[in-house]
């Protein structure tokens, strides 16, 4: 509406000029329609801006004008009313005159209204402009404040900066001025200026360090030189040893001639006096047994043909340092008493020391050890080293086997002769992993050792028989320190143990040899066992590998053996694969350390027309029982080292029988894969339809068991 009105006004006023407008404004009270008409004539041809006019006019006066106009209007209206009520002839003219006047007043009111609007808009614009300016200033202020803060932070960072040189431990100031050369210290410059002073001190430090590094290098080269010298001297010494040995050898006949060997033995006995009681017992008994054996065997001089030789190793001086030499070496009582005293005395000061040291102290062994070399018939030697753990009061042994000829070690024979397992279970259940002395458990609790098992690789195995050889007997019910080395106990065990040791080594060596050919797929059958098997065996061993205990436990067809507790972790485990044609027979073998008195145990799984194990095929079960239960007929000549190979050969024969007697499926075309070549009386027998697995030697036919 306002805009339209403005445009009308412009049209109306476009005729007047500025001057007349001013006059019009000044004499607004007297405005009349005639005046306006004359104004229009004046304004002709010029653009009139009402906005500009606003600036020129005083709002106060406009207000006055407005008031005045309103009064005039009221007055005129009242007059018109008055005239109308009076009525009359000339009234119409007067009313017309009044109406025209009031029209003019209305025009003025409209004009004032427009002006008020323009003023309002202007006012608003100004306010807005001012506000924007203020905002811009505010933003600038904040930017500046932030900058200030950042700078302040940077300043504090700089202030807090720590130079590396502060950590360096420099020589003290006096020392520096005293020792440093003047070209570094520059006393006149640095005295007053702490910065320069520090720089100079750092220079001096660097200089000193360079010198020391030089010195270090020199020392190293010096050390190398000395090492080389030592090497040369050692070489010389080692070359001296064989020469000395040869001299000794050469002098042997002389010694013998003069009955001198007693002298050497005497020396050994002299050393033996420093042995701890159990080792001493072992030493005496072993020597005695060795001599007795040698005497029994032949009338030759004893030294030549010794199946058992005994020696003492280790430093005698250390042993002397440990023990006050006993007055009488025969008196075991006083000896062990002395030992008791020693240990208790030693333990007291260690109470405050770290647990680790305590453990080491606990597991300490006597510096002297007894070496036992047991020679077997085929010139292989079992080296046993016996140690005595002083604080635990138990004996341990480490074993090593050497053979006369170099052995080609088959992969699967890895564990057979390993020191860890070669003597395991020499007596049933004697794994050598637990301490035989019940009192030890209490000692272990104090220093936080859970079990001796973790330490046996270092210390050797504390087998029960070792304790018995040393004359140590541990009663099960009384965990007390009242164990005394006893000669009779050792003597009673010496012979059986030595025999067991010999058979163990021989059976391990036999296995070792057998494994070499098993790995090449050959089952070695000796001539004296040939009668156990038919001449023609078609099934072949194709694989013989060692497997881990865990793998054995996870096989699906070995569950029975595991559940029966026959698969302990001290056993050795193997996997054999026997093949004939498309039939593959897997055999998982448990080899007890007590082989060959405890037979190897076979579990079978046949892959042929599906997978067959003892749980779904009675004949597979029968084959297992043929090798596992009826093993006695497979032992061969004593000492039955051929058992394993015979069992494997038997397995091949059994597979032949199994495959050849398998009933032919009439519905399938073609010839049988395995024609029956074996002579059998009957194919099946009994409720479980057993196959004829038993071989009858001279006639060569197969029958049922």
């Amino acid at each position, binding site marked *: 509406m306002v805009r339209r009105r403005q445009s009308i006004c412009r049209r109306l006023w476009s005729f007047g000029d500025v001057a007349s407008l001013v006059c019009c404004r000044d004499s607004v009270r007297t405005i009349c329609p005639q005046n306006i008409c004359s104004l229009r004539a004046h304004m002709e041809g010029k653009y009139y801006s009402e906005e500009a006019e606003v600036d020129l006019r005083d709002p106060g006066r406009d207000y006055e004008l407005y008031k005045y106009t309103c009064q005039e209007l009221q007055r005129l209206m009242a007059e018109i009313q008055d005239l109308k009520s009076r009525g009359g002839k000339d009234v119409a003219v007067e009313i017309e005159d009044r109406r025209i006047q009031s029209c003019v007043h209305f025009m003025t009111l409209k004009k004032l209204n427009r002006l008020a609007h323009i003023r309002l808009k202007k006012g608003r614009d100004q306010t807005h402009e001012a506000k924007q300016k203020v905002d811009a200033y505010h933003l600038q202020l904040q930017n500046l404040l932030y900058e200030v803060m950042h700078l302040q932070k940077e300043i504090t960072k700089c202030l807090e900066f720590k130079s590396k040189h502060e950590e360096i431990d420099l020589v003290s100031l006096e020392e520096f001025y005293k020792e440093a050369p003047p070209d570094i210290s520059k006393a006149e410059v640095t005295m007053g200026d702490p910065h320069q002073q520090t720089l100079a001190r750092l220079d001096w430090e660097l200089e000193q360090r360079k010198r020391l590094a030089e010195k270090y290098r020199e020392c190293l080269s010096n050390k190398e030189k000395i090492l080389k010298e030592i090497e040369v001297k050692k070489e010389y010494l080692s070359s001296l040893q064989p020469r000395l040995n040869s001299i000794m050898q050469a002098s042997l006949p002389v010694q013998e001639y003069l009955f001198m060997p007693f002298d050497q033995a005497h020396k050994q006995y002299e050393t033996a006096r420093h042995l701890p009681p159990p080792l001493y017992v072992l030493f005496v008994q072993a020597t005695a047994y060795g001599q007795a054996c040698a005497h029994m065997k032949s009338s030759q001089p004893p030294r030549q043909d010794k199946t058992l030789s005994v020696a003492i190793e280790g430093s005698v001086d250390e042993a002397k340092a440990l023990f006050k030499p006993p007055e009488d070496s025969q008196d075991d009582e006083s000896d062990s008493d002395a030992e008791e005293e020693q240990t208790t005395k030693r333990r007291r000061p260690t109470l405050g020391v770290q647990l680790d040291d305590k453990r080491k102290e606990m597991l300490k062994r006597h510096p002297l050890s007894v070496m036992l070399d047991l020679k077997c018939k085929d010139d292989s030697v079992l080296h046993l080293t016996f140690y005595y753990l002083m604080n635990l009061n138990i004996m341990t042994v480490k074993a090593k086997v050497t053979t006369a000829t170099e052995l080609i070690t088959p992969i699967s024979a890895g564990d057979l002769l390993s020191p860890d397992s070669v003597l395991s279970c020499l007596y049933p*259940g004697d794994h050598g992993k637990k301490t035989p002395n019940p009192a030890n458990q209490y000692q272990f609790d104090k220093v936080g050792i859970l079990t001796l098992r973790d330490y046996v690789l270092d210390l050797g195995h504390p087998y029960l028989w070792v304790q018995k050889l040393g004359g140590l007997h541990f009663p099960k019910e009384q965990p007390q320190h009242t164990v005394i080395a006893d000669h009779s106990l050792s003597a009673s065990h010496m012979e059986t143990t030595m025999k067991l040791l010999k058979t163990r080594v021989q059976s391990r060596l036999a296995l070792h040899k057998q494994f070499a050919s098993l790995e090449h797929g050959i089952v070695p059958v000796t001539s004296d066992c040939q009668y156990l098997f038919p001449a023609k065996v078609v099934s072949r061993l194709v694989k013989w590998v060692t497997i881990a205990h865990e793998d054995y436990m996870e096989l699906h067809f070995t569950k029975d053996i595991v559940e029966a507790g026959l698969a302990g972790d001290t056993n050795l485990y193997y996997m054999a694969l026997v093949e004939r044609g498309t039939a593959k027979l897997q055999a998982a073998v448990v080899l007890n350390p*007590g082989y060959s008195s405890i037979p190897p145990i076979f579990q079978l799984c046949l892959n042929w027309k599906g997978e067959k194990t003892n749980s*779904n095929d009675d004949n597979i079960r029968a084959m297992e029982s043929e090798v*596992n239960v009826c093993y006695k007929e497979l032992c061969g000549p004593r000492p039955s080292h051929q058992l394993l190979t015979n069992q494997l050969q038997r397995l091949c024969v059994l597979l032949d029988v199994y495959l050849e007697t398998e009933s032919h499926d009439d519905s*399938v075309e073609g010839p049988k894969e395995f024609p029956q070549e074996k002579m059998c009386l*009957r194919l*099946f027998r009994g409720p479980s*339809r057993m196959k004829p697995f038993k071989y009858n030697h001279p006639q060569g036919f197969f029958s049922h068991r």
Partner: protein
Amino acid sequence: MPGSEGAGEELFPESCFALALRGSWTLAWGLESHPEILRGPNTKMEVFQTLQRLHMTIFSQSVSPCGKFLAAGNNYGQIAVFSLSAALSSEAKEESKKPVVTFQAHDGPVYSMVSTDRHLLSAGDGEVKAWLWAEILKKGCKELWRRQPPYRTSLEVPEINALLLVPKENSLILAGGDCQLHAMDLETGAFTRALRGHTDYIHCLALRERSPEVLSGGEDGAVRLWDLRTAKEVQTIEVYKHEECSRPHNGRWIGCLATDSDWMVCGGGPALTLWHLRSSTPTTIFPMRAPQKHVTFYQDLILSAGQGRCVNQWQLSGELKAQVPGSSPGLLSLSLNQQPAAPECKVLTAAGNSCRVDVFTNLGYRAFSLSF
């Protein structure tokens, strides 16, 4: 010394604590596993015995006439007698599940056993032996008599796979490796008849209650029906020739047989099948893949067992009602103790390829196992 005393006091509670800990730990272990399993068999003898037990097969069972004892014969020729009443009683211990007495009855396996009202008859390789139940229970195990059927071959002693009592005639029928059925008079001990006809060895026998007829099933795949009066073969069913039940990959042998007057159920190489005897037609073929070694009628069910752990219960219509797992990987014999003298010992026992005899107090689950 006050210092050392102080140290001692300090140490003491600590070690006590350690001891207490260790004590509870071993206690937990002791509860969890049997000490024998922890240790395992060690000596040569222990290992051998464990292996023997592992490879044991129990071929036959027989309940004593009083119903309170169960005899079981294994592949080593041993017979063990278990006391069912002790094992089933409320205060049964582990020992009561062990045999009351074990004795060596035969050199070879004990394939079959039956009990008369006084005797236990056991058969193995070529011989049948009689034992007095009363003496067995007194642990004086001396054989009463032994008999050997007249065999023609001498190269190999044929085994006896099945024994069958014919109460009406007071005779015993033996069958096995020589492909014949021998009838023995229990009064005199004489072998009266020999029924020939099978071309391979005989696995099983069954008696038809009403008429004096005997069924036999053998390795040759035929079920033959014999009339005892005339000693003639009356009927022959060659099971493997019927396409519905023949399974050539398993062979044609008939391993088990049971009869209930007009009905006969047999299985083995061919599928377990219910036959109508008069018409000699297979009526129901039971969907069981594994060869069955023992089958019996029980009320309106058929119980069967064989390869696999389960005792199978069938409806006559061929539906499998239940499969109850036992502890052996394969079963060879089932025995239902239905002696009226001991109703409290009414159990089903199952034995096979293990040293355990599973006892089922009802048909739903295995209650426990007796063990050699």
